[in-house]
């Protein structure tokens, strides 16, 4: 199990978003929303230009959670995400989190993490609560109601 478990801090995952990655993501989504593809169209919207699909940043959250919890993320993960601000071409997105609580059942420990993505200006673009099964109790983290 990853060594990160006695630390509170998760991440960071640091990624720069480009017009190409935004377009590639929209292509695999297969929806073809011009807001993510067509600058002329996007300029006329309230966003004023191309933005990334909000779901794109979830991949960074997943990578961070998988690094910390492995299978406990793949088969017992939970995510509750609010998309706060648009991600634009050229943005560098930094994803971080910390374990804020843990819940013990008879056989398993589940951790609760507060997670966010912010851009290079320090503005949050995404906030989430993520949960995963952990290998055991994490030192120094309060237990939440039984």
């Amino acid at each position: 199990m990853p060594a990160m478990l006695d630390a509170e801090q998760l991440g960071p995952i640091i990624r720069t978003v480009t017009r190409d990655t935004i377009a590639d993501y929209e292509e695999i989504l297969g929806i073809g929303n011009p807001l993510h593809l067509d600058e002329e169209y996007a300029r006329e919207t309230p966003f004023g230009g191309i933005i990334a699909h909000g779901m794109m940043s979830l991949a960074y959250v997943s990578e961070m959670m998988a690094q910390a919890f492995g299978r406990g993320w793949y088969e017992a993960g939970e995510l509750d995400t609010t998309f706060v601000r648009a991600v634009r071409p050229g943005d560098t997105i930094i994803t971080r989190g910390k374990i804020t609580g843990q819940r013990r059942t008879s056989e398993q420990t589940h951790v609760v993490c507060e997670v966010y993505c912010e851009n290079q200006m320090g503005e949050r673009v995404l906030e989430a609560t993520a949960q995963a099964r952990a290998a055991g109790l994490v030192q120094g983290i309060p237990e939440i109601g039984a």
Partner: protein
Amino acid sequence: MKRKREFAIDEIEVGHTFSPLVFLIDEELIARYVDTAGDRDPLHRDPSCARSAGYQGIVAPPTIAALYVLKAYRTDSVPPPGGVHLRQRFKFHHPIVAGDVLSVQASVVDKYVKKGRQFLVIESTARNQHGVRVVWSESTCFWPE
């Protein structure tokens, strides 16, 4: 891609169920997904690494669910462009590996107007080819004005 008919907000009420989506997760899709994200974890790229870690094949990042939950309510017709996705919840119940064929069923669980905006909440459940529930999803969007 052929453009499907757009549906109107009045056509869908709470309880409305969309036609199921059948969605193949293959190695190529996983590779393209992790490439856009810049994720270098070999579990998502190398079958022998994934097998030695105890998985049936290359593991998909579970947030690849984004690719099918948004399609799952576009099986019959599509919402007009301009909607904004505000909140997304997922529960991951079982690893998704390359070769899985998911069937995804979406339905409308809430619809309300708040601050003059029309909101829609869509839930979906994905099962793999063995009938195992792999992902639960809930998407909250507001409808284009």
